[in-house]
């Protein structure tokens, strides 16, 4: 029987003063500590607070999956599932000088395209700037992108990658789990793709329960049997 991985705590609840967790979601007033969002208080030798919801704030070095939203003269504006819209400069994409008179931006990236990019800079005074000029970055040309709450990303990855690795093994798919809550899924066939997406949604939904890795395994195996793959 799955149980809660801890106690659900909500804003205003008192947490033990020695609690560890993301500081932006812990409010300290004097000696009192309260969670700023709904989350789990995992007790053990060291109590820790795990938010069940979070808002993605870019940080330089983050690998994110972005969606091209609009196009400027010299850049694209990219939705990165954050309050802040990101910018991708054309020069960065082309890796050469760009001439608006000759080059047509929509030949390279179109509105609605997904890209894998790295956050180059962000300090909350200006919009985040992305780069794609590194190995493995650029336009996504195959597979699917699944969106989950950024708070559940650690659970999809699992301890030392255990969850995502077991998914890989079971399905033969490839997963890129970006910190902004978007997951790029590439699978050998459509059935495995569908199973992978359902499994990811299951992890998101049940992130706060125990025994999840085993349940996900069972789910994938049963689905594979049902679909005959």
């Amino acid at each position, binding site marked *: 029987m799955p149980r809660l991985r801890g106690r659900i705590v909500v804003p205003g609840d008192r947490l033990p003063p020695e609690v560890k967790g993301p500081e932006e979601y812990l409010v300290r007033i004097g000696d009192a500590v309260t969670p700023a969002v709904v989350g789990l208080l995992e007790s053990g030798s060291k109590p820790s607070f795990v938010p069940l919801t979070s*808002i993605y704030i870019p940080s330089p070095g983050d690998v994110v999956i972005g969606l091209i939203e609009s196009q400027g003269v010299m850049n694209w504006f990219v939705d990165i599932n954050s309050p802040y819209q990101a910018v991708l400069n054309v020069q960065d994409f082309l890796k050469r000088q760009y001439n608006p008179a000759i080059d047509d931006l929509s030949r390279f990236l179109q509105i609605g395209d997904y890209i894998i990019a790295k956050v180059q800079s962000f300090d909350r005074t200006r919009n985040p700037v992305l780069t794609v000029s590194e190995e493995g970055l650029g336009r996504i040309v195959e597979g699917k992108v699944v969106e989950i709450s950024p708070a559940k990303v650690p659970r999809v990855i699992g301890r030392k990658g255990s969850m995502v690795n077991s998914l890989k093994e079971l399905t033969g798919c490839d997963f890129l789990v970006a910190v902004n809550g978007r997951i790029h899924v590439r699978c050998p066939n459509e059935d495995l793709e569908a199973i992978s997406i359902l499994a990811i949604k299951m992890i998101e939904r049940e992130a706060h329960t125990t025994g999840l890795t085993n349940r996900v395994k069972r789910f994938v195996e049963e689905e594979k049997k049902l679909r005959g793959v």
Partner: protein
Amino acid sequence: MTVKHAGLRLIDEKGLRHDGRRPDELRPVAMRVGVLSNADGSALFEIGKTKVLAAVYGPREPPQRHTMLPDRAVLRVRYHMAPFSTMDRKSPAPSRREIELSKVIREALEPVVIAELYPRTAIDVFVEVLQADGGTRTAGVTAASLALADAGIPMKGLVAGVAVGKVDGVIVLDVDELEDSAGEADLPIAAAPDIGLITLFQLNGVLSRQELEEAVEMGLSAIRRLVDMEKETLRSSVTVMPGE
């Protein structure tokens, strides 16, 4: 326009109110979160016949960039009554009352929202009164508090509100429309009990210093109960177990 119901008795000989409640009794309360799919957070709050829906969008880039603040998110709040929410149809155009209440509700939420985490963004709170039977502004605060928490907006604590009133010389909790229009005073109050702050406070009517203190006490004790209910609502909204 206030209608004074001359000769109407609002407290009977047993000390009970026109709907049978004791002076310090709330009407039946219902809370739900996540009731809308598009909004980042949403809540429905009902107290008696009063029904209020709140939705939160954001933090997001505000459409008017000049409204951005460099060091925090701006909170934008709209309190609005549906045309069918009242006995006589309410014009959907924003009234002066709605303009004022949007402001006092915003100011009731600002003390708990940790806006400093999201500079240059806007957090939008839309409060729609679906049915009005007294206490709609404070119900709006309660619904908004739930919707903000549901949206994952970081908060120092939850807020709830209630309207205290004076009818037939008695201080009563959670006045409905009849008591509000016929009573001697109406004191809408909202607070964040976990951080010890009253965040909305209005008095329409006449009270002595003694009565004012009594009304504040009565309101705050009900608000503590409402905030506890908000917490339970949020807890049960995330503790959906497999198979449920």
